[in-house]
C-alpha cells in the first residue's frame, strides 16, 4: 500500500515536471525530449493502473515512434531557438494564461464535485493477469467496436499515403528523369 502511494506521487511529479518542461523551455530539442519523458511517465502510470499491455503499446507507439519523429524533424530543421518562448504583449499573454488557469480550476473543481457519485460496477471485474486483459480487449475490439477498428485501418492507410504525398520532393534516387 505504501509503495503504491509513493510510486504514484513520484511518477506524478516526474510527469508534471516533464510536462512543464515541454511547454516552457525555449530550445525545441529539450521540449521534444521532455515530451518523451512525459510519455514514459504516463506509461508508468498505466502500469500502476494495471493496464500492462497499454503501457507497452504507449511506449512503442508514442515514446518510440511519434516523439522520435518530432525529434528528427526538429533536428532536420536545425532551428535556432527562440529568444523568448512566449508571445509578446503582456495583456494578451496574461489573458491566455488566465484562461488556461480558469479552465484548470473549472476542471479540477468539477472533478471534486462529481467524483463521489462514481460507483464501481461490481459484477465486471478486471483480472490481474495481463494476458486475460489483452484477450478481453481483443474480444471487445472485434465484436463491439469492430466498425471503429476497421475505420482505423482505413484511416491509417489514408494517413500513410497522405504523409508521403505531402512530404515528397522532386529528385532523389528513385526519381524519373
Amino acid at each position, binding site marked *: 500500500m505504501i509503495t503504491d502511494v509513493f510510486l504514484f506521487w513520484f511518477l506524478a511529479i516526474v510527469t508534471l515536471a516533464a510536462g512543464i518542461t515541454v511547454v516552457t523551455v525555449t530550445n525545441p530539442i529539450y521540449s521534444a525530449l521532455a515530451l518523451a519523458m512525459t510519455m514514459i511517465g504516463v506509461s508508468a502510470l498505466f502500469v500502476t493502473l494495471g493496464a500492462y499491455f497499454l503501457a507497452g503499446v504507449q511506449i512503442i507507439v508514442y515514446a*518510440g515512434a511519434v516523439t522520435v519523429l518530432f525529434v528528427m524533424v526538429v533536428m532536420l530543421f536545425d532551428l535556432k531557438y527562440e529568444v523568448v518562448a512566449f508571445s509578446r504583449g503582456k495583456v494578451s499573454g496574461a489573458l491566455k494564461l488566465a484562461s488556461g488557469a480558469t479552465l484548470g480550476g473549472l476542471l479540477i473543481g468539477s472533478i471534486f464535485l462529481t467524483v463521489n457519485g462514481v460507483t464501481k460496477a461490481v459484477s465486471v471485474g478486471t483480472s490481474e493477469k495481463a494476458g486475460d486483459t489483452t484477450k478481453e480487449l481483443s474480444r471487445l475490439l472485434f465484436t463491439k467496436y469492430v466498425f471503429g477498428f476497421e475505420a482505423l485501418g482505413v484511416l491509417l492507410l489514408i494517413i500513410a499515403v497522405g504523409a508521403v504525398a505531402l512530404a515528397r520532393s522532386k529528385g532523389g534516387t528513385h526519381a524519373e528523369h
Partner: protein
Amino acid sequence: MGNSLTEIIINSIKLILVFLIMVQAVPVLVWLERRGSAFIQNRFGPNRIGPLGLMQLLADAVKFLFKEEFSPAKSVKFLYYAAPVVALVPATLAFAAIPLGAPVQWDQYVFHLQGYEISVGIVFVLAVSSLATYAILLAGWGSGNKYALLGALRASAQVISYELALGLSIVGVILLYGTFDFNEIIQAQQGPLILHWMGHEITFLSFLPNWGIFYQPLGMVIFFASAFAESNRLPFDLAEGEAELVAGFHVEYGGFKMLLFFIGEYGHMLVSSALIATFFLGGYTIPWVSMAELTQWVGTFIQTPNWISLVTGLITFAVMFAKIAVFLWIFIQVRWTLPRFRYDQLMDLGWKTMLPWALFNTILTATVIYFAHLG
C-alpha cells in the same frame, strides 16, 4: 520484489547479477569478435596479452579509463554526456526481462532466473528496444558535428524502419502460443515435434524437437535479419560504417563513453540472440527432453527437492547460454563475411521486402491455426 526479507534480498542480488552478466559478456564478445574475425581473415588476432589474448580487453579498458575526458567545443554538453547512458539502459532493461533458466523452487519461494518477471514480456522488450533510437539521436545532435548528425538521422531512420519488421515477425509467434509471457512460450516448446491438424496428431516428424523454428520458419528469417538492423551490425551498419562515414554518430566519442556505446550495441546483440533462442529454439529447455523428464533425471542423483530444482535451474541456464553463444557467433561471422548494404537498398529492403513478408507470415499463421483447430 517479494514479501519476506530474504526474498527481497535474493531478488535484488539477482537483478545486479543479471546486469553484470550483460556487462561482463561484452569483453568476452569483443575478444571473440577480434579473434574470430582474425580467424576468418586468415591472420592472428590479439595474442600478446594474456594467454590467447584474453587480457586484451582488460588492457583496453584500463587504457580507456585513463584517457582524457573532453567534449567538443560546439557540443551540447548535457546531451553529449547523456547519450552513452541512454544507449546502455534499454539493452539492460530488455535483457533482464528474458528468462535465462528454469524457475528455482527453494522451500516456499520461487525464484525466476531473470531480472524481473513480467507477464507482458514481449511487449515490454519491444517497447524498451524502441527507446534505443534516442541514444543515436542524442549522440548525433549532442556532438555538434554535421557528419555525426547526418549519420545519426540515417541510423535512427533505419532502426525505426526495422523495428516494424521485428515486431510483426513476432506476431506469428504470439498467435501460435497465445501468450505474451516468455515462460509460457518456452514451456510450450518442450518435447518432440508433434503437429496437430484438424484433430489428428502427426508424429512422423518426432525426430525434431518441438521448437518454434519449425512452426515459424519465415518469422525466424525475418526476425533474424531485422535483429541485425536493430543493433546496427553489418550488413546494415552504413550509419556507422567505418571507412565511409568515419564512425557515424559516435565519431566525437572517445574513451569510456565509446565503451558504453559498445556495451549498448553488444547488449542489443545479446538481447536479439536471447530472443531468437527463446522464440524459435526452445529457450532454456533441452531439445527432445521435457522439463519433467529433466527434473526426474536430476532426482536420481540428488535427494532434497531444493537442490534438485537448483541444479535443474543451473543446467537450463547453461543450455540457454549455449544457444545464445551459437547465435552470437553467427552474428560475428556474418559481420565479417557479408558486404554492406547501400542506404537506399537498406530502406527498400526494410519497407518493400520485410514488411510485406512479415504481414504475409501473420496472415498465413492465422489461417493455418484456424484450420488446425477446426477438428
